[in-house]
């Protein structure tokens, strides 16, 4: 019985943590290279979710293709938003970029509201996602295991790319010292484009599992994952890719512990407790759990 509770807890933490890890990783990829906190990241997820909705409702495409196009939409919005909105302002101050990312976020939200609908739309989810699976007596929907597996695969691939390809090594160098990397011939535009493409890719994957969990998409949906990403990043460390992953899982762990231990009268204050913990992190360990090597320098 105890073992079962433990297993159920582990599955909950790992599945939630996997999703959160992917969310915060997408934020930190861009931050690492550009030192930009991209407020429009939540809308990358929303764009992907809308593509899932449209293709799922209005076409008979097989699931795999729907997912693929959803992810491609995330990649495209990442790539093009950088090209159109961020690149022209990059030579200016970092503050200008921050304001730009707010603007991109709001513009996309308004576009969804006016062009699609202010109301939420039901996103079709493949039946196997919600199929219940029994492991050692614990019943859980298959999507919980799928997100864990997907995350393991994605993290492995990303680690291999960052460690063994010249592009990955250059990205790590550029996030430590952008100017020096450029002096070595690493093109600034390429680094930033790749960071936004990876960020958009992760947003696309997140959209699949996020909309499967909530079952819907609406113009403002990006806010919650963005907030989760921020919190995970504060916990794990803004300057380290592994830190952001750790932060996602730690966040899920704390959140699940709170759900289990808080008396039911306090349960509705779970988020308040979560924020208190985040503030404690900011005060006691402002660099997060994993520090990483970085220089406080903007991309010129």
């Amino acid at each position, binding site marked *: 019985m105890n073992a079962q509770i433990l297993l159920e807890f582990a599955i909950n933490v790992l599945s939630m943590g996997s999703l959160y890890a992917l969310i915060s990783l997408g934020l930190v990829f861009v931050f690492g290279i550009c030192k930009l906190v991209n407020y429009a990241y939540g809308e990358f997820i929303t764009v992907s979710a809308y593509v899932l909705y449209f293709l799922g409702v209005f076409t008979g495409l097989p699931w795999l293709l729907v997912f693929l196009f959803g992810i491609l939409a995330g990649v495209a919005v990442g790539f093009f938003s950088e090209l159109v909105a961020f690149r022209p302002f990059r030579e200016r101050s970092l503050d200008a970029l921050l304001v730009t990312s707010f603007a991109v976020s709001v513009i996309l939200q308004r576009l969804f509201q006016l062009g699609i609908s202010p109301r939420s739309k039901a996103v079709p989810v493949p039946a196997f996602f919600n199929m219940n699976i029994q492991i050692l007596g614990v019943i859980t929907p298959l999507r919980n295991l799928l997100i864990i597996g997907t995350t393991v695969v994605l993290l492995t691939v990303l680690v291999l790319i960052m460690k063994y390809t*010249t592009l990955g*090594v*250059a990205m*790590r*160098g550029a996030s*430590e*010292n952008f*100017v*020096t*990397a*450029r*002096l*070595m*011939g*690493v*093109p*600034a535009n390429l680094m930033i484009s790749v960071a936004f493409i990876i960020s958009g890719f992760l947003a696309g994957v997140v959209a699949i599992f996020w909309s499967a969990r909530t079952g819907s998409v609406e113009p403002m949906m990006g806010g919650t994952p963005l907030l989760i990403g921020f919190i995970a990043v504060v916990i794990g460390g803004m300057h380290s890719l592994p830190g952001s992953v750790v932060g996602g899982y730690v966040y899920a762990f704390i959140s699940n512990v709170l759900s289990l231990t808080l008396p039911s009268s306090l349960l509705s204050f779970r988020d308040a407790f979560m924020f208190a913990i985040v503030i404690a992190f900011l005060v006691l360990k402002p660099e997060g759990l994993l520090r*990483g*090597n970085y220089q406080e320098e903007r991309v010129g």
Partner: protein
Amino acid sequence: MNNNTILQVSDLYVAYGSIQALHGVCMEVHKGELVSICGVNGAGKSTVLKAIAGVLKPRSGSIRFKGKEVAGSKPEQLHKMGMALVPEGRDIFPSLTVEENLRIGAFGRRLDKSYAADLEDLFSLFPILKERYHQAGGLLSGGEQQMLAIARGLISNPDLLMLDEPSLGLSPALVDQIFELIIELKSRNITILLVEQNAQRALGIADRAYLFSNGRIEYSGRPQELMDNVDITSVYLGGQNGGDV
């Protein structure tokens, strides 16, 4: 400008915001030369290297590299054209291994047989880098980091190697080693633009030298001519008896 001139800087003005750092600098470097830039702190030595390498955009003036106007070009383009700047303070990538630091230095180059051969060649110059090949750059000592920074500049086989205070903060023995290395590079016919506060040492090995002061070139010419002027030595050149502050 003859076709032996690899770098020609004319009337270069560079500013940091409202702070004017260079006021009309003119200088040139010929193929195979070792040219040294000396001057006290804040004279504008690093600024001129950064402007040449594309890190800083000049307000006005011209920079011609291998016959092409390059003022305002991006650092990555200039690197591709054959420039390498070994920055002041080394700026190695601390969490990357020696191998990865060198790999970034060779960015845009295929990691083929000729790369492997060049690596072996670098290891003969810097045996310590072979020993530390898989260690994080941040774990190396100051001297080793400087070796790595120079090796990272050399691995792209640059047509112009710019060194910004390579002996800064190193022990006397290591300073000797760095200067021996520069002499070795010069004997290999590598064109070098060397910024040094240790002016006596730099002038001792340079073909020509520029003396910077307050963002201007105060003197230029053969090292001997500069050193013969004792006044200048005490005021600007640092070295054993003062000025090195």
